[in-house]
């Protein structure tokens, strides 16, 4: 176990370094042309451009440039090219909003996903299964941006008819817990619906696979009640793959993957910060956010492997 964690941590650092280098290349090498010229703007003199190039270290080897940026990022001194704000500071300020959005949405999608998937599998072939299957299909086929706009239009006063919910914005939990909840309800569902549909479908097929396993038949032969078989045997085994999915999905949304939901509802989280930086073609914040997102993904994927070994005795960490 310890050996596994040590090796994985080492691997994680390598992946993160590779991700940061890839991000650097994406912004400095792919577009072609002169980065300093792009930053200096249209009316820059050659002296301006040379000055910027020297200041940013763009006259140096690409590895040196990248390493300089990484050093700044890790020591928390990296600043935006666009407005000079501190990148690490900005990400830290966005985190409470992103976390509020993602934790709430995560609870909703896990809860509803498991509920919907279980009902669907238990009533397989019946009317409620067919209804859930159809709804889940619609859920995974809706573009998130459109779903967000649709909910805003119908429930947040954008359409002028009903204004049951506030139209975007965020109130910190510490300021007013009720307003926090009230402001986040629509964004939570916007983010969760895709996942509810997906988890419901996965869980349904997992349960239908599991009920044909020998241990379920044994439980039945022992004379256990069907409720106990479902909860203690079938569901327990069927939920293991869901743990993996949830870990990775949750990491992705925490790491800035909720960018569309945050943009639609003007929640100024990490994803929103990334979206703003994209419009300004501001590299340092994007480096910061991408690395922050990748860190969540690699850390959570290690956690998922550990949880998997714990939940499923057939799997051993090596």
């Amino acid at each position: 176990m310890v050996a596994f964690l040590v090796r994985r941590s080492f691997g994680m650092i390598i992946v993160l370094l590779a991700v940061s280098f890839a991000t650097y290349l994406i912004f400095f090498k792919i577009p072609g042309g002169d980065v300093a010229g792009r930053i200096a703007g249209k009316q820059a003199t050659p002296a301006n451009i040379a000055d910027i190039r020297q200041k940013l270290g763009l006259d140096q080897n690409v590895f040196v440039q990248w390493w300089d940026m990484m050093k700044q990022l890790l020591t928390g001194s990296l600043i935006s090219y666009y407005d000079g704000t501190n990148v690490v500071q900005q990400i830290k300020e966005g985190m409470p909003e992103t976390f509020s959005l993602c934790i709430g949405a995560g609870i909703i999608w896990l809860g509803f996903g498991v509920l919907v998937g279980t009902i669907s599998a238990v009533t397989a072939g019946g009317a409620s299964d067919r209804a859930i299957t159809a709804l889940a299909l619609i859920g995974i086929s809706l573009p998130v941006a459109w779903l967000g706009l649709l909910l805003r239009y119908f429930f947040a006063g954008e359409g002028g008819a009903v204004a049951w919910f506030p139209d975007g914005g965020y109130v910190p939990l510490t300021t007013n817990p009720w307003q926090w909840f009230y402001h986040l309800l629509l964004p939570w569902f916007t983010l969760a619906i895709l996942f509810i549909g997906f988890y419901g479908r996965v869980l349904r097929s997992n349960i239908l696979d599991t009920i044909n396993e020998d241990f379920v038949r044994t439980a039945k032969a022992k004379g256990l009640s069907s409720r106990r078989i479902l909860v203690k045997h079938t569901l327990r085994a069927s939920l293991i793959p869901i743990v993996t999915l949830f870990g990775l999905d949750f990491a992705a949304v925490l790491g800035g993957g909720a960018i569309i939901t945050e943009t639609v509802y003007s929640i100024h989280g990490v994803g929103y910060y990334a979206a703003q930086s994209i419009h300004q073609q501001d590299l340092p914040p994007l480096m910061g956010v991408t690395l922050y997102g990748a860190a969540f993904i690699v850390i959570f994927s290690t956690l998922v492997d550990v949880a998997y070994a714990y939940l499923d005795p057939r799997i051993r960490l090596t």
Partner: protein
Amino acid sequence: MATTGQEEFTLDTASELAAEESGSKIEGKSPWALAGRRLRRNYVALAFLAVFILVLLVCLLAPLYSSHVSHLKSDTPNAGGHITVNGQTIPILSKGSSKFNQNGSVELTPGGIPIGPQWGASGGAYFFGADGLGRDVGTRLLYGGRNSLLIGLSSAAITTVLSIVLALLAAYFGGATDWIISRFFDLIWAFPVILLGIALGTALSINGFNHGPIHIAPGSLWIPIGVIAFVFIPYIGRPLRGQILALRNREFVEASTAQGAGPLRIMFSELLPNIASSVLVLFTLIVANAILTEVGLSFLGAGVQPPHPSWGTMIADGQNVLASDPWLSLLPGIMITITVISLNVFGDGLRDALDPRAKVRIEH
């Protein structure tokens, strides 16, 4: 197969079909013929395939709609223009006005609100209304659909081909080749999909792509196609590599090696046919996901660049006037949802018929 006492759990399409497949009905038929037989009997999947083909055909007819029905181009702004509806001339974008009341207050009516759907009253023009720049929404919807579908289908095709080649190389040669390709998958996979997509999309839309023999202009549709294709590689490459790895040491591969077949022959004539059914299923589901990703990227400004229409850019264009002109965002969203649902249902049917194990998932 269904065991006694478990019928309530096993009424699944795939197992239903499998259960009735026995004896003379399936004797002497190839796996593909069997799959075809299963698919032909899955009327829901076929109906949704028909829906998808219908959407595709309608969007391909966009130029005809533009020249014969709306008489308007998809990209030409017409903000100051007028149209004649039932003999009356009305501006395409409403004029703002200010009215001075007796008591000195001023009533301002904001201008620039595009006309709504005309439903044919104006002889085909602005059937679904105009957008904020006075462009015909109906025409843009069809051209936008053409672009969205082109992006979805081409990027899925490119990803699939690249992933197949990488997965074959990795699983066949193993060792260092496998290590490098697997780490490449890991690298892309470690980025959140949408963040990598917008990073690449933004970087490429600055100056286009000019490396080696490939030159792509900044506003080209090939940029979102390439970006989506690249981002999805590990999501197909990884499962395919796993499948090929399981086939790699089977007897038929050994037999082929013994007959003197080279690596290329083994990869493409022995291994590839064995994963073909999974590839087909994955491809359908990737098209659906690629269309959704295009919407996300275009919504954030990192996908299709103006003035090209796409369903994603149309939703983004409509969001600022959501309160006054909801149809601008509603229509393209409905089209996307119909298209993606039809692909997902057909993909599920294809999977039930061909390969019940194939799975694909990508977040947006």
